[in-house]
């Protein structure tokens, strides 16, 4: 049994923020029906390249955020199409959308319309700027992230602002919407009624910025809003450091290396951050994560073999290390540059220094820890007729775990099934709808 067995979701969304909200529910077993226009469907189906790199033979962008869903190709510009939608609404628990209010009005699928049909409906809106904002401006992930302020505080001083990553804000918006839907479903159990909820991109991205936005709001201290150089990190023991480049090593495959190799190799494989290799793309950096206290300082200087730093009176106390942070970081930069990341991690593991190599996407893709927890999984992709690796389940439930059963459906793949089995249309009626252009 799945956690959300029996919950039916109408997913009138496109691109990322809305679809990924539906994906969370679908992963845990809700029947999620992705409603798409018959002409081309969700615009996410049209993604051809990522960062100027062609997507290849399968469009992961669309297929993964719409996994485990059904596709209903429906033209809401037609009376017949809207009639199908209303019948589906009567049978649904949740209506999820991130389309503009202009379109929702035009198609008469606003909350006011739909609650008349089904008072138990949870209507979830993924808006750009919130329910009390009268704005028609577009709300792309990056545009909204630009307004939150987080981009301006990242990176070294004088560097351009930094985007948190493709879809980073949409991912949070979708997660918030999924949470809101679950809260509203719980409330419905008690009240017998559905309701309207809005998890906007702006609200979600302000929450995303919380670790530094919240201190800024509380203090108005620009330390939290402006770029801070790693060369002046307030605690030099919690900072990033570049190490010596190693000759490129052969990449270790997941699951490899279980046989006993040399003790040294085994220690490195068991280092806290998993496998290490240099992809030849630049210096390997480490993230050292220690508190500024005497115990941590002793461990670090031992592991670094730096008696001269340990003896330096400027760095002898936490206060001294904080006061002379720039000098200490400069000294540590010199030390770290003498050995490879693998060597340092080996020594740190032995000395109890908490640190991790700063990995790249190739390394996370092979990280055994991610695989052990199902953060990655493999599934069959019909489009290319082979197994592909996809991001898995970030939330683990012990008795009703989520799963990846299918990747995103073909446009209109389930139209006839939904019409005949869920809504009770006859095949003649289905033919008439096709004739009228209401369905694909």
């Amino acid at each position, binding site marked *: 049994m799945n956690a959300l067995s029996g919950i039916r979701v109408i997913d009138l969304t496109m691109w990322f923020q809305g679809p990924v909200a539906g994906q969370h529910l679908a992963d845990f077993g809700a029947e999620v029906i992705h409603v798409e226009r018959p002409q081309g469907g969700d615009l996410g189906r049209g993604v051809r390249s990522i960062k100027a790199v062609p997507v290849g033979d399968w469009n992961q962008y669309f297929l993964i955020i719409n996994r485990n869903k059904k596709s209903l190709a429906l033209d809401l510009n037609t009376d017949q199409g809207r009639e199908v939608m209303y019948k589906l609404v009567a049978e649904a628990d949740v209506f999820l959308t991130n389309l503009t209010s202009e379109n929702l009005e035009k198609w008469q699928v606003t909350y006011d319309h739909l609650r008349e049909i089904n008072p138990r409906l949870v209507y979830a809106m993924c808006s750009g700027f919130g329910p009390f*904002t009268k704005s028609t401006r577009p709300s792309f992930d990056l545009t909204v992230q630009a307004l939150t302020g987080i981009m301006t505080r990242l990176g070294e001083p004088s560097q351009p602002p930094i985007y948190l*990553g493709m879809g980073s804000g949409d991912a949070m918006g979708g997660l918030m919407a999924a*949470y809101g839907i679950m809260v509203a479903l719980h409330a419905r159990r008690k009240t017998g009624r559905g309701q309207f909820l809005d998890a906007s991109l702006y609200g979600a991205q302000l929450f995303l910025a919380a670790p530094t936005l919240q201190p800024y709001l509380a203090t108005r201290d620009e330390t939290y*809003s402006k770029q801070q150089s790693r060369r002046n990190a307030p605690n030099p023991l919690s900072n990033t450091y570049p190490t010596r480049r190693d000759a490129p090593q052969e990449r270790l495959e997941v699951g490899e290396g279980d046989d006993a190799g040399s003790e040294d190799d085994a220690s490195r494989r068991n280092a806290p951050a998993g496998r290490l290799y240099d992809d030849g793309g630049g210096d390997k950096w480490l993230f050292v994560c220690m508190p500024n206290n005497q115990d941590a300082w002793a461990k670090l200087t031992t592991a670094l073999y730096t008696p001269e730093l340990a003896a330096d009176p400027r760095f002898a106390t936490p206060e001294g290390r904080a006061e002379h942070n720039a000098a200490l970081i400069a000294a540590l930069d010199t030390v770290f540059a003498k050995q490879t990341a693998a060597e340092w991690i080996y020594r740190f593991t032995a000395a109890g220094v908490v640190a991790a190599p700063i990995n790249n996407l190739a390394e996370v893709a092979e990280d055994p*820890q991610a695989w052990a927890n199902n953060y990655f999984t493999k599934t069959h992709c019909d489009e290319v007729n082979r197994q592909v690796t996809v991001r898995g389940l970030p939330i683990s439930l012990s008795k009703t775990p989520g799963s990846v059963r299918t990747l995103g459906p073909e446009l209109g793949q389930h139209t006839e099934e939904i019409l005949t089995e869920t809504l009770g249309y006859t095949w003649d009626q289905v033919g008439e709808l096709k004739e009228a252009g209401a369905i694909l």
Partner: protein
Amino acid sequence: MGALSDITVIDLTASFWASAGTALLADFGADVMQVEEVKGGKKEERLPGWDLLARRNKRRAMVADDAGLRATIEEADVFATDLSFPELEARGLDYDTLAAGKAALIYACASGFGPEGSDRDLPALDELAAARTGMMPVLPQPGEPPVYTGAGQMYSSVMLALGVMLALHHLEETGEGQRVDVSLFSGNMYGASLDIQAYLAIGGERLLHPISRLDAGNPMSGPSYPSSDGRWVTLTMPDTDRYWPRFAPVVGLDPADPRFDTHDKRCEANRLELIQYLDGAFCRQPAVHWKQQIVELGLSGDVIEAYDYPANDEEARRNRYVIDVEGSDSIGLPIYMSETPAAMPAEARAVAR
């Protein structure tokens, strides 16, 4: 009536992100009892304002011993914790022990790297998880140090609350409790979904390394351009055909300019030339000019602001995304609900036990 007013949560979390996750339950009326340990307990450097977000709407209790804590948990619907797995096991607060006393318990565990695998017991530090996720080297400009955003942990916060709600739904349907696990690693990875997935599907060197803003995939969607007053402007017009006729004149180009008159020319053949051109064009006017043009012409983009923008933004206040808590500004309530809205934070009250 709060949406979750019938739910009780014993909250043995100390880290900002995990406590912020249970605060999302408290916002909707769950009775969340934040347990403070008389002896020891987890220590974390807490930045100003963190507690206003992470502890709001919760009650607080001091618990002297684990036997008392176990008895309290048995009376609750949900137990949430960010203690390490070895400590939970050593103290008899692990899932198996608690579920033996109450099968219907929802046991929510917030860890650094998940309950399985050889690194399950690593410290739950967002920095370690972020380092491991693969995004830090990608974020800056080429040649710059890797970037730690600190934001990854917030996905984990919401996932904790969502995981509890998924398990509650199943509990209400079947009477069966279960264990919920989220981690800093899973949250950081989820936040990097599109980058990670693109690499998995496409591979190649380009996706592993920083890409210069002057080498962006789409000159009109993604890159940032400096304006004459040093502020940055970013554009988000992925379907360039739709915007080009209005956008081109704004930057001094003829829409029929044969170098850029199709989407493919703008985003493929002459992509770099267009980026160079725009980089020069945006430098000629201040940010306020560009903002005005974007609004007036219905383009998509904006000036990249700093934290003073949301702090002073009336829309953020009107939507309760920024609120006043105990006389201080705070991040507010990201989800609006028409019938069972999240509550304004009530003053936490200490409950001695």
